[in-house]
């Protein structure tokens, strides 16, 4: 990694220099720009670029900022619909939640990754991931209402993977808990493919009314307006973060890479958020149109250049005015370093003193952290250049559209090769070899690390701070908050993607992820209104890795179109592969937001009343590809459960109406581990007070496959406890759903701590307390032995 100490020389000499020499120069300065990119900069500027300019382009043209390999594929995603208040052009998308007291409310959503930092320094990497996503939502003018964390780790048996998993969970908790935003959803998978490259994705939601939206752009007519930097003083941390995230990690560089990770300060962020909320109120009272954007990749330069360029302006920044924690920081570190906890406003000069007084006096930022403050650092200009000054001299002057317009690469692409269907017919070993359903197998499935209780992890996160949480983590398939005091409007949030599926068929797995994320919010009774994607893949310069990316983008686009839910925000994370091993399982992780018109119509997954009818809605599959049982039995299964979109659509529409009619007492999706796990997880929470088990009909009465597939296939779908079975079935018929879609499978039954059980007819009866122990135990010791790097 580059060291800040080498930033003396003024320019990179291009003329007369050979490619090899330039490549050496680039490496020596820690730049990830390619030689051809460097020459392109020289040609456009008509001179040698200063070293500072090279660092600026290095950040802006990184894959992380420019989406240079992915942008044109992302256009394939559906991004429009009646619920879209703002699509994916800014830091966060905005979805229409509903009306209350004459106001139209929106939910801002952003979804990011912090994979590389978390692999190198897990605690700080994961914490700053939360810090960054919170600013993405904050800068839309929104108040933060929820967080979610999809996590992917290597196997816990590996000491280093364990160290990373523990550090990441602690880091997320330390930051999210301190700033006071409830963490209400998430998922965790453990897979060998994440051994050298964990995935730490973060989703944040914010609430705002339509008239409160602030755009990340210099508003029309803002020439001559002030650019006000707020937050932490710039330090040496986080120099080169954008370029770092676009590198393939090499174990030898691990120590050097640590300098590129930012330092989290949730304490300062807590106050900064509250001061910004106050500023939003004053901006609205005065009916001002302003610009606000967070500082992420590319630091002060990246943020202010994009603010100005988005409004069609240029900008001039005086680096001497930027507060720093120490004297003599190199200009490039001040300009592109990614110190955390900073944002920038574009405001009319007569408002500047008011804004500064909110941050500096009312919320006393300078007393909260050394050097923290609001300060004017530059001006919006009509001139279409981006200019940086240091000690009275220009150290950077480039055409702003050239800097922020990005570049495009058409990467070679080799689509994933799947087993041919002729091959498949003969390889369904589950049917051929006939492994049997057994109690031991049931217990092993429940104890699998992708199935077992996540409580030891989500208990580290505060899921109820703010006093708005209606369904915290662990109570249902999606978390639900009721963010507007006094209003019955609820917001549901879920995340999903299954890496085991991805290893069988990346594209179909991507489609399944969209379906399941949507299914999760439907399970609680919320109408799905929007999606985000964080596309975690390998090396875009590798045709097979890139082919998986293209196939998955097509997959999620197809599924979202079929189910009529738009994407409003997202992120691409490439280079998730280690120097020594293969790429990670292709991981397009999906988040879904649902709207509840009336939170009193929501349902959790816990069984409610003995004697209620149980139904399976969809969910049965013959194929065991990618299933937990296939992993445990090492079955050679090469086909995922198929997706029948018209049927899935009809089932979801039906369920939402059943929720609204009060017919659903409990609902839970059928996913990892299959039907047996779904039933068990609905029964487990009842063990606390009045235990309720289930009596399931003989499998042959409701399923067309053997017990193994019936109870362990992961075909999607739901188990529903109907509060009125006859009406539920009648409504299904009205929706044109036949018995293949909505099947009675049994009923809930009363039990005691000692007797509550799952009675699976010909497959025997299973003591609930024992199943619960098998499911609870595996991660109970998550922290027992603290691993060391």
């Amino acid at each position, binding site marked *: 990694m580059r060291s800040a100490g080498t930033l003396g020389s003024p320019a990179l000499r291009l003329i007369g220099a050979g490619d090899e020499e330039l490549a050496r120069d680039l490496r020596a300065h820690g730049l990830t720009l390619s030689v051809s990119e460097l020459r392109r900069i020289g040609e456009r500027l008509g001179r040698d670029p200063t070293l500072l300019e090279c660092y600026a382009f290095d950040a802006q043209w990184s894959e992380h900022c420019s989406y240079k390999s992915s942008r044109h594929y992302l256009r394939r995603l559906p991004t429009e619909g009646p619920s879209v208040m703002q699509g994916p052009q800014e830091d966060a998308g905005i979805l229409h939640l509903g009306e209350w007291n004459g106001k139209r409310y929106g939910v801002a959503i952003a979804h990011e990754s912090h994979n590389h930092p978390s692999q190198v320094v897990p605690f700080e990497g994961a914490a700053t991931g939360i810090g960054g996503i919170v600013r993405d939502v904050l800068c839309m003018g929104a108040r933060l209402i929820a967080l979610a964390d999809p996590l992917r780790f290597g196997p816990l048996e590996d000491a280093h993977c364990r160290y990373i998993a523990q550090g990441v969970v*602690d880091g997320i*908790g*330390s930051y999210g*808990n*301190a*700033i*006071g935003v409830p963490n209400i959803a998430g998922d965790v998978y453990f897979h060998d493919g994440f051994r050298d490259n964990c995935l730490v994705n973060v989703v944040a939601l914010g609430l705002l009314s339509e008239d409160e939206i602030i755009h990340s752009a210099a508003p029309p007519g803002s020439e001559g307006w002030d650019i006000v930097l707020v937050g932490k003083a710039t330090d040496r941390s986080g120099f080169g973060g954008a370029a770092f995230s676009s590198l393939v990690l090499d174990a030898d560089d691990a120590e050097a890479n640590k300098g590129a990770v930012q330092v989290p300060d*949730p*304490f300062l962020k*807590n*106050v900064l958020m509250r001061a910004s909320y106050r500023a939003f109120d004053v901006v609205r009272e005065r009916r001002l149109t302003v610009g606000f954007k967070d500082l992420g990749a590319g630091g002060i330069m990246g943020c202010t250049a994009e603010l100005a360029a988005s409004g069609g302006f240029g900008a001039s920044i005086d680096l001497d005015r930027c507060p720093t924690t120490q004297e003599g920081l190199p200009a490039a570190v001040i300009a592109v370093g990614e110190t955390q906890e900073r944002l920038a406003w574009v405001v009319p000069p007569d408002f500047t003193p008011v804004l500064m007084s909110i941050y500096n006096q*009312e*919320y*006393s930022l300078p*007393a*909260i952290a050394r050097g923290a403050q609001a300060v004017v650092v530059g001006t919006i200009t009509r001139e279409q250049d981006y200019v940086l000054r240091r000690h009275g001299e220009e150290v950077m002057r480039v055409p702003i559209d050239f800097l922020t317009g990005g570049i495009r690469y058409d990467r070679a692409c080799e689509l994933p090769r799947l087993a041919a269907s002729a091959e498949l017919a003969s390889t369904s070993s589950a049917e051929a070899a006939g492994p049997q359903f057994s109690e031991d197998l049931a217990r092993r499935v429940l104890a699998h690390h992708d199935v077992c209780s996540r409580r030891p992890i989500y*208990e*580290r*996160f*505060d*899921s*109820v*701070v*703010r*006093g*708005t*949480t*209606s369904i915290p983590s662990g*109570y249902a398939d999606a978390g639900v908050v*009721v963010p507007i*005091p*006094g*209003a*019955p409007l609820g917001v549901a949030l879920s995340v999903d993607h299954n890496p085991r599926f991805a290893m069988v068929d990346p594209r179909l797995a991507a489609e399944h992820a969209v379906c399941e994320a949507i299914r999760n919010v439907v399970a609680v009774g919320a109408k799905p209104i929007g999606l985000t994607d964080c596309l975690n893949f390998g090396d875009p310069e590798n045709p097979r890795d890139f082919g998986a990316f293209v196939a998955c983008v097509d997959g999620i686009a197809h599924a979202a179109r079929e189910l009529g839910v738009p994407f409003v925000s997202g992120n691409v994370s490439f280079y998730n592969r280690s120097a020594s091993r293969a790429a990670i399982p292709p991981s397009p992780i999906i988040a879904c937001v649902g709207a509840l018109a*009336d*939170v*009193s*119509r929501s349902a*959790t997954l*816990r069984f*409610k009343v003995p004697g209620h009818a149980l139904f399976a809605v969809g969910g049965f599959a013959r194929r065991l590809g990618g299933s937990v049982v296939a992993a445990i039995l090492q079955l050679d299964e090469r086909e995922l459960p198929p997706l029948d979109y018209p049927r899935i659509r009809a089932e979801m529409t039906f369920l939402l109406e059943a929720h609204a009619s*009060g017919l659903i*007492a409990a609902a839970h999706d059928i996913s990892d581990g299959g039907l047996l796990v779904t039933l068990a997880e609905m029964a487990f929470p009842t063990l*606390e*007070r009045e235990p309720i088990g289930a009596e399931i009909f003989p499998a042959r009465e409701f399923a067309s496959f053997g017990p193994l597939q019936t109870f362990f296939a992961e075909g999607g779908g739901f188990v529903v406890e109907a509060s009125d079975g006859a009406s539920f079935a009648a409504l299904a018929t009205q929706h044109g759903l036949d018995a293949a879609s909505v099947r009675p499978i049994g009923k809930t039954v009363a039990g005691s701590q000692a007797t509550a059980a799952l009675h699976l007819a010909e497959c025997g009866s299973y003591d609930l307390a024992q199943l619960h122990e098998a499911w609870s135990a595996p991660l109970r010791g998550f*922290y027992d032995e603290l691993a060391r790097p």
Partner: protein
Amino acid sequence: MGILVFPGTNSEDETLRACRAVGLEAQLVHWNADLREVRAFAAYVLPGGFAYEDRVRAGAIAAHDRLMTVVRERAAEGTLVLGICNGAQILLESGLAPGLDGDPRPQAGFARNAPGGRFRSTHVYVKLAVPPSRCALTAGLASDAVVPAWASHGEGRLAASPEALERMAREGHVAFVYCDATGATTPHAIPNGSALGAAAIVNREGNVLAIMPHPERDGWTFMHHDASRERARGDAAAMLAPSGGTVLFAGLAQALG
């Protein structure tokens, strides 16, 4: 009444809502507020969070904040003070609770959770463990009242010398203990290893209450996951009504008349 906000406090909004839900006139008071105005409040609530980043120990720095000089004076005059979570930690660190013999120095603390020493967020129940009249804020509660709440903290384990613990138990300073949904006090119900199973500490005079779990986080029906939620199905007004944990705030309102 004033809800004190220190840098790092994060539960001020829901605490304010809980106070207003029971008819209290309440407002947020920032750390840099004019002390004369702070002195004028009839009661104080110290909400949850991580005041001053919990540097040194949870609540240790805030206990010496300028606002606390006012709270200390006003508490000595008999003014009601309720500290929740981080607020409770601040009250112990400032010596306002338990205040054995009226000693103003800290006599007990909330130490790191055991086992494991980590932050934990889990639903709990707490039971009134003193006669209701022992504390001004609980005077309106039934004996043995069970209140739902969320324990969301990393440092909630009551710790003190054996002598101090013995006196706190004997002299009725343990206002609430952890219990299960039926009110039974079992070791399993204690989320943090707290000595005496203590969830809340009251001072000698009964006007200062330091409670670790958050009653305001299970203070409306939509937050519950018991039969009351099922009864409110399809009834938005019932779902949004205050219930459960808000009973403690109602006690505050009642005490203030």
